[in-house]
């Protein structure tokens, strides 16, 4: 009996020790960072610029979904507070819930708008970032500021100085339009009197490939950026369309229909050395490169309905990726490589934007119950935002959304409508 007691006494702690249970907690709620943007004081004659810089800067940061910009009415400006960390009463800012604080000063220097940006960590009570810029416009200055703040928090290059290309359809005209990521500052770089569609950037941002009917049938043309000059790139069979540069800019993948069979082809950047990658009698179309340039996703109707497929860049190992839905199209591989965005028609016969993992085939949804058509996604170069076309407000307009779809903003309100957006590369 005594032996048994001794044994139990000796073993009890060990048994207990061996039994600590572990649970997993995952899927956190990513909460926007609370950021206060203090009113930007202006130098002489720069009042309007300061307002413009502040508004554009706020809009930029709000677009990302990473920040919760505190309502300026929730804090009162303290005129005695300067831009040195020692002059700032950080407790006042933490009391209103700010985790980060942005201050800036905007001045006019001849034709230029100059500004200095300060970013503070409220909890630490320290200045984390200080930058000085001179730009030609207030908007350019604001985008610079926003890029810096975004880069500070995400440790990735900001995307606010990139441009989005889109097609604006007028009466008998097709315009290739470039705009800022907030939909503003739109400029037409090329106006065509025949159908122009499917713009796609060269990785260096100096050219946009379009599919043009200028010679009577669909062909690939290159439009210089920003001068708008046109050069013929590829003409093949009955049609050549939907061309996309490889990530290294050396090859172009496109769809061509030869003898009535639509397939995916590749060619050199000058249009030479055309090779056919698919040969299925069904329709193969809409190629998109993986960011490492080693694979191509495309649409094929070989299973009866259009679905997303993936193959090696040399055409080998073609396999089906999507098995849900029955009308999946316009795939666009994320610059991060982990998702392919595409348009699909769901069981309610509405078009929405979805994501599929090229590795697992798991499908996520970006848009839902927002108009009848949300389509043609294109990734921001950081892979953290998408631009897509929506009809939720009537005419087709562009929406910038995060991949989770819980942050979306209609960024254009064009009277003619916008289509086929292509998000451009990072500014050099």
């Amino acid at each position, binding site marked *: 009996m005594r032996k048994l007691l001794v044994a139990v006494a000796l073993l009890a702690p060990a048994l207990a020790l061996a039994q600590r249970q572990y649970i997993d*907690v995952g899927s956190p709620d990513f909460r926007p960072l609370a950021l206060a943007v203090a009113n930007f004081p202006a130098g002489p004659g720069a009042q309007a610029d300061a307002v413009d810089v502040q508004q554009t800067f706020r809009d930029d940061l709000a677009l990302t979904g990473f920040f919760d910009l505190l309502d300026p009415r929730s804090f009162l400006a303290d005129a005695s507070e300067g831009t040195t960390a020692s002059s700032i009463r950080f407790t006042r800012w933490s009391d209103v819930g700010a985790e980060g604080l942005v201050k800036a000063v905007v001045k006019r220097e001849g034709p230029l708008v100059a500004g200095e940006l300060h970013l503070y960590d409220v909890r630490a009570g320290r200045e984390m970032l200080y930058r000085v810029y001179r730009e030609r416009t207030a908007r350019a200055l604001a985008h610079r500021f926003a890029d810096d703040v975004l880069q500070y928090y995400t440790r990735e290059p900001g995307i606010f100085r990139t441009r989005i290309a889109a097609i604006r359809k007028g009466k008998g005209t*097709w315009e290739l339009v470039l705009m800022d990521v907030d939909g503003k500052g739109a400029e037409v770089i090329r106006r065509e009197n025949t*159908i122009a569609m499917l713009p796609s950037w060269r990785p260096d941002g100096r050219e946009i490939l379009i599919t043009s009917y200028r010679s009577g049938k669909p062909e690939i043309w290159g439009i210089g950026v920003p001068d708008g000059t046109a050069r013929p790139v590829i003409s093949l069979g009955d049609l050549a369309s939907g061309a996309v540069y490889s990530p290294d800019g050396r090859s172009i993948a496109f769809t061509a229909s030869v003898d009535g069979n639509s397939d995916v082809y590749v060619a050199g950047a000058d249009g030479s050395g055309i090779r056919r990658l698919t040969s299925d009698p069904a329709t193969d179309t809409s190629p998109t490169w993986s960011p490492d340039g080693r694979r191509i996703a495309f649409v094929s109707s070989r299973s009866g309905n259009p679905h997303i497929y993936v193959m090696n860049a040399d055409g080998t190992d073609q396999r089906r990726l999507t098995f849900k839905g*029955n009308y999946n*199209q316009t795939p666009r591989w994320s610059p991060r490589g982990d998702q392919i965005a595409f348009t699909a028609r769901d069981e309610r016969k509405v078009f929405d934007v979805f994501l599929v993992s090229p590795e697992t085939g798991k499908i996520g949804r970006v848009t*839902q119950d927002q108009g009848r058509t949300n389509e043609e996604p294109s990734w921001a170069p950081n892979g953290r935002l998408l631009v897509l076309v929506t009809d*939720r407000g009537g005419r087709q307009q562009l929406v910038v959304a995060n991949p989770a779809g819980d942050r979306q903003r209609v960024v254009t*309100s064009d009277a003619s409508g916008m289509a086929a957006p292509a998000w451009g590369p990072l500014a050099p």
Partner: protein
Amino acid sequence: MTGESALTRGPDRLWPLVLVSVALHVGVFAAAFLVRPPAIVDLDQKPIVAKLIRLGEKRPEQWLPRRDVPPPEAAPRAPDAVPVPIPGPPAPAQKPVALPAPKVTPKPTPPRPASATPGGKGSDALSRAMDKVSKDKKLAEKERWGDPSGVSGGDATDASEGDRYLGLVTQALQASYRLPATISEQERAQLKATVVLTVEPDGRVSTFRFEKRSGNAAFDQALERAVRESRLPPPPPELRQRFRTIGLGVNFKV
């Protein structure tokens, strides 16, 4: 010497007991060193999750997914947003394929016929549009899919059996598990940390320590805050002693 007989006999009697004790010690140390370590570092340990499956019909396998919570509608548009069909045939301009893209007018309200199928501009277009509206409505009513064997109060579409209390703890921690959205996707993939909580009988967390930090200060800070803000339910009597002495391990992942 003879007077020591009692003592010499003593050790003889205790000898088996000493053997047992040594064996137990060896056993305990072996158990502690051989069995425990993998359990501590195994971050991929299967979670114990208690989920209640929602009662309902299963969503067909081949359908595209729907989210339980629809995304918020984007900021309201300017007043010029009158639902007008896009002029001109958009099909060739939008879809490079010979596959017809069915388009419908933005608002399928009864007065305006919607061309739901390619070339659907015949005289029966209106009735088909009406059909479609009612079908859509039926689908809309079936927002929440579940499982025929689920329960009406369930909130998951699928689940595995598990311990109820740990399920509640998971739920409580989950509710306060918030991270700054500024942590980049690339960092997110790496983020893992294990903490050990000492849970008092009333559910209060009396100590919090890292068994394994993530190395990302923002993440580790957020975990402390999440635990501090959470309200754990009181452990059931049989678990109280264990949670107060050896604690509960939590693997935080992204």
